[in-house]
């Protein structure tokens, strides 16, 4: 038997039958169904178990406000927990499972919690599980989390892709009901750039759920016709399946477009969802209203739902939760459910209206002045127990009950910038306040304009007003005739009867009693009420429950509802998948990669790469037979020191500094003097932060009187450039200086080792003399190579060997590395990577990032005298602070183990040979360490108190974390060629 609760009519496509399963059982539905409507059509009312007490639950609503019918959708790595069955568009092959139950939905062992409800009231975990304290984290919390919960995660990588995007428009219209569609027509016909978005897969909002006519069409047909017109307009973008999740700063809205959630798997190359950032000059909120329930004892049984949802299922989806239903209402709108279901052939047993003077609107029994005081039916509603106006009681048999306590304008987004809604006595509801997010206005039911005619009019009027603000003119559109009934309601929040539980927040299992308990325990502020009881938390954010809680708190506190106030609404409006927030920034695409000009060649050599910033740098180049990286690195170091090696140093930042004041500028940026650097020379420079701490170092070459090329460390390239722009634009805007990065413009290779000159003489065009006399240490020059290609040559050395850096336009970088390696074959030239580079600079005692670590000064680095006192420069004054110049200030020194087999480890701290090992006795620390193949020993450099005067002292290098304790000797940081003879050769 299939779809026994399927009615006639509706907007499902009976021509397309879709197969799906729920908890392993197979069912059929139609295109246009949601999972919830299809389940109801198949007579499935029980869809889940509640959060805390594991009570059987079914759907309460028909839209995204649904608190109960949460399912695990799909399976395997696409399994998604806590999906609302009311928003899941049915597709063929859909798999859904109920959650938070064991072993099955119908028999859930954890339902035992329901028996202990007296112990599990609001805040129970604040009062219990107090002893022993250590048990909380290890035992109590895990047990509670296991027992109370929602769906489970797949614990597998999400296989889907997500995009992020940006849209711009004059007017963003949030919601595609009557107000939104009228607004879009008005603004669209006026030629404005319009985006209209609706979370539903069909535009129309309540028009699809009601039987009202608009003009001579049904509401749903009018919506469809209107959307067809809008889609034909080039300036209008209609986005269905798109939820506007928040109104963010400066009028920017966020949106989630569900591109592929309505199919089993996204098509190849297509995304599952898109996170849009929408820059609308104006935003018009037409988000409609959400019905609110009335609380009464056992009002959570499957089959009890909002009256508006019940008729939405009947009218739009041609499904009824049961063949016999009743309605419980405090307003005229609830009666519509009875009218519509009767029209669909469903047996409506009675309309129970709390108002003594309730009008008889539907062709069924009316129980005016009556209240539902209890219900029965273990896994689904069977009977409602009614107290009639005269105090007598009566049972009515029905499988479903539609409940209406009135409608709340959907003010959510109006509060995202901390605006507060205001109370409207006539509607007994909050409506948008005056303090709205930038550019936002509200129309239709979201603004308390509940009738269809009022919504159409407001949408059109507000759209015209928005355009007027933008200096555009919108002509009034002819609005069709539509229903225009007023709101007729007597506020009624909960039934005061009995001692059983009346549910307010079905998602968090919060009852009327819990609110009373919170009040009794002095959690009276609405924000405290929320935290103490969890009212309004989790996936539905209390869309159907908050008002009830506020009303009860108001009554208990003897205040009015507006005096109690509301909690703040925050984005997102409805749950957002984490994947779409990540977008494409996942795994290898987490950030962009920067490749060096020799990347392709290095890859061919089998290089191992390391990330430095976004750069991929070759770490070492293994040769056949080398089984450990140290073998490769040791070989590379020996080859450089023995003959010649080549290293790609393109990654070092290069900043072109030009202008008549370029030298003056550099003199202020660098601590040491630069003004008198001759053209054709390069100088090492140290840059300080404003506070006197070392910021960055590098060499700067003077290519002309008014042109320098500065080199920065790889890691600080961007920070230094930014710093210099700040200095230029804000500190000394009067200087004639122009800055631009040229890091990627030039492919730059270090050619180092005693044979480097011989090698380069084969590359550099012969008219350029690069002999020691013709091109001395620290020289720089524009040259040509390989028969005329413009290039730059610098005689600088990081390794301590005779060395050069040669730069050519990047497009020739690949060709140049190949040419150099070919030319170097006769010298057994090697390519060396960052590891060998590191070993050699430690052997030479050169500071790098580990030493310029944001805490060290020029003095610490052994470069105190470089901070010129003949001029002012950034950081110069503050580097004189007393605390930075103590007699025992840290100084850069070298270390080697007393026992050659021991290892110096970076990060270890230095302690005296005897005595305690603690922070009070800390003498310094090792910043960089390596195995030196030249010294055949582990070596390190680092900072030691009064280090310069402690050469030869034996100390302990300790790391209490790793249990390391090694005896080391303090030595000069210059392990290799301390006199610098090699680099001047």
């Amino acid at each position, binding site marked *: 038997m299939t779809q026994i609760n399927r009615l006639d009519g509706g907007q499902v496509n009976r021509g397309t039958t879709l197969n799906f399963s729920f908890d392993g059982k197979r069912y059929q539905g139609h295109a246009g169904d949601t999972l919830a409507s299809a389940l109801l059509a198949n007579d499935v009312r029980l869809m889940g178990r509640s959060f805390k007490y594991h009570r059987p639950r079914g759907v309460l609503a028909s839209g995204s406000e649904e608190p109960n019918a949460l399912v695990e959708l799909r399976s395997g790595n696409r399994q998604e927990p806590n999906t609302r069955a009311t928003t899941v568009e049915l597709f063929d092959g859909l798999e859904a499972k109920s959650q938070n139950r064991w072993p099955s939905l119908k028999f859930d062992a954890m339902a035992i919690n329901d028996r202990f409800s007296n112990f599990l009231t609001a805040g129970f975990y604040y009062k219990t599980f107090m002893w022993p304290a250590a048990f909380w984290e290890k035992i109590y919390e895990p047990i509670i989390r296991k027992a109370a919960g929602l769906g489970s995660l797949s614990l597998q990588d999400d296989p889907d892709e997500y995009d992020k995007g940006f*849209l711009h428009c004059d007017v963003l219209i949030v919601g595609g009901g009557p107000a939104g569609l009228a607004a879009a027509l008005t603004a669209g016909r006026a030629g404005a750039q319009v985006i209209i978005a609706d979370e539903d897969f069909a535009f129309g909002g309540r028009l699809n759920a009601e039987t009202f006519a608009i003009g001579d069409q049904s509401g749903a047909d009018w919506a469809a016709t209107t959307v067809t017109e809008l889609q034909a307009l080039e300036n209008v973008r209609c986005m269905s399946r798109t939820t506007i999740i928040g109104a963010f700063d400066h009028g920017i809205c966020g949106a989630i477009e569900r591109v592929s959630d309505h199919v089993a798997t996204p098509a190849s190359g297509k995304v599952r969802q898109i996170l849009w950032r929408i820059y609308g000059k104006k935003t018009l909120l037409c988000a409609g209203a959400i019905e609110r329930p009335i609380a009464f004892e056992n009002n959570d049984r499957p089959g009890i739902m909002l009256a508006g949802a019940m008729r939405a299922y009947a009218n739009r989806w041609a499904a009824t939760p049961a063949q016999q239903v009743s309605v419980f209402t405090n307003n005229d709108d609830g009666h519509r459910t009875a009218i519509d279901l009767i029209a669909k052939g469903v047996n409506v047993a009675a309309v129970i209206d709390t108002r003594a003077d309730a009008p008889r609107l539907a062709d069924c029994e009316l129980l005016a002045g009556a209240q539902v005081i209890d219900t029965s039916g273990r896994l689904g509603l069977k009977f409602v127990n009614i107290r009639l106006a005269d105090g007598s009681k009566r049972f009515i048999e029905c499988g479903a009950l539609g409940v209406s306590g009135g409608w709340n304008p959907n003010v959510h987004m109006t509060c995202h910038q901390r605006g507060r809604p205001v109370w409207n006595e006539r509607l007994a509801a909050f409506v948008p306040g005056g303090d709205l997010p930038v550019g936002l206005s509200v129309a239709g039911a979201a603004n308390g304009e509940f009738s269809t005619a009022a919504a159409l009019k407001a949408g059109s009027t507000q759209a015209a007003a928005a355009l007027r603000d933008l200096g555009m003119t919108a002509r009034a559109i002819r609005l069709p005739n539509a229903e225009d009934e007023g709101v007729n309601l007597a506020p009624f929040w909960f039934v005061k009867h009995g001692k059983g539980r009346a549910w307010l927040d079905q998602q968090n299992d919060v009852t009327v009693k819990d609110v009373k308990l919170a009040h009794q325990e002095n959690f009276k502020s609405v924000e405290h009420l929320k935290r103490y009881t969890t009212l309004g938390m989790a996936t539905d954010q209390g869309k159907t429950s908050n008002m009830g809680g506020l009303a009860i708190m108001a009554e208990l506190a003897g205040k009015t509802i507006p005096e109690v106030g509301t909690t703040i609404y925050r984005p997102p409006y409805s749950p957002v998948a984490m994947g779409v927030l990540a977008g494409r920034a996942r795994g290898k695409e987490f950030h962009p990669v920067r490749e060096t000009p020799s990347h392709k060649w290095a890859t061919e050599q089998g290089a191992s790469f390391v990330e430095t910033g976004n750069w991929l740098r070759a770490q070492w180049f293994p040769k056949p037979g080398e089984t450990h990286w140290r073998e490769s690195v040791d070989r590379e170091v020996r080859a450089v020191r023995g003959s010649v090696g080549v290293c790609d140093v393109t990654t070092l930042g290069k900043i072109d500094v030009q202008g008549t004041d370029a030298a003056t500028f550099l003199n202020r940026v660098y601590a040491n003097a630069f003004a008198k650097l001759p053209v054709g020379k390069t100088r090492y420079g140290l840059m300080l932060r404003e506070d006197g701490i070392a910021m960055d170092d590098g060499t700067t070459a003077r290519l002309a009187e008014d042109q320098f090329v500065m080199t920065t460390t790889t890691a600080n390239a961007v920070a230094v450039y930014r710093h210099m722009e700040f200095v230029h634009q804000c500190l000394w805007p009067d200087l004639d200086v122009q800055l631009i990065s040229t890091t990627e413009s030039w492919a730059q290779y270090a050619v180092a080792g005693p044979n480097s000159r011989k090698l380069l003489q084969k590359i550099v065009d012969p008219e350029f003399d690069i002999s020691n006399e013709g091109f001395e240490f620290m020289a720089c020059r524009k040259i040509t190579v390989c028969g005329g290609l413009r290039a730059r040559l610098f005689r600088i050395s990081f390794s301590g060997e005779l060395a050069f850096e040669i730069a050519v336009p990047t497009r020739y970088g690949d060709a140049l590395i190949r040419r150099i390696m070919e030319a170097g074959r006769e010298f057994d030239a090697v390519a060396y990577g960052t590891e060998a580079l590191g070993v050699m600079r430690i052997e030479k005692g050169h500071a790098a990032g580990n030493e310029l670590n944001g805490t060290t000064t020029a003095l610490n680095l052994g470069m105190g005298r470089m901070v010129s006192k003949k001029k002012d420069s950034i950081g110069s004054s503050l580097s004189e602070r007393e605390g930075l110049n103590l007699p025992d200030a840290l100084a850069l020194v070298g270390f080697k183990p007393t026992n050659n087999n021991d290892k110096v480890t970076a990060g270890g701290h230095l302690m005296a040979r005897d005595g305690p090992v603690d922070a009070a006795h800390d003498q310094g620390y090792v910043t960089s360490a390596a195995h030196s193949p030249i010294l055949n020993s582990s070596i390190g450099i680092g900072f030691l108190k009064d280090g310069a005067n402690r050469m030869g002292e034996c100390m302990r290098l300790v790391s209490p974390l790793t249990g390391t304790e090694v005896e080391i000797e303090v030595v000069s940081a210059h392990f290799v060629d301390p006199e610098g003879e090699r680099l001047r050769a």
Partner: protein
Amino acid sequence: MHDLVATSPLGGPRPRTGNFGSVVISECPGWALASVAARRGKEKTMATSAKKLLGFALPGVSSLANNGTYTAFWTGPDQWMIEAPHASHEDLAEQIKSALGDKASVTEQNDGWARFDLTGTGCHDVLERLCNANTRAMQTGAVTRTRLEHLGCFVICRAKNDHFSVIGPRSSAGSIHHALTTAAKSAL
């Protein structure tokens, strides 16, 4: 004449082109670039000399000007990028410097950037998945700087609606190209 063979930003001997239906994405390495910044106090005389050299006045904020050979686009106050065919103007920076002398600071930028051109009716659909530039509103000759794939890039509207250039940092050409082609597959 030197004998070194140039590679494109994507590392190939020839520029790469891909057809994605309503958009063709092409790597365009055939352009020389030079940055020009007026020296302090010489903004006006520099503009005059530049006009003489280029044959048109340097463009204003967020825009581009061109004739047959040269294209100039604004990059900041008194700063421009000049573009010309690489084959004939590999030494573009030097040529401009000779013409402008000490009125401007000129820096070779030929290989600092990777240019990708998007042509076809689907340009907006691709670009809106990548950056917050409002490309639909961009007229021919409009230029903007925007963040694309976490990188600061220039987006240039060469022809309204159906021809855009994305000019981004060359070392990340692979990442930019990946982002462009992935977005094209996703959006088109």
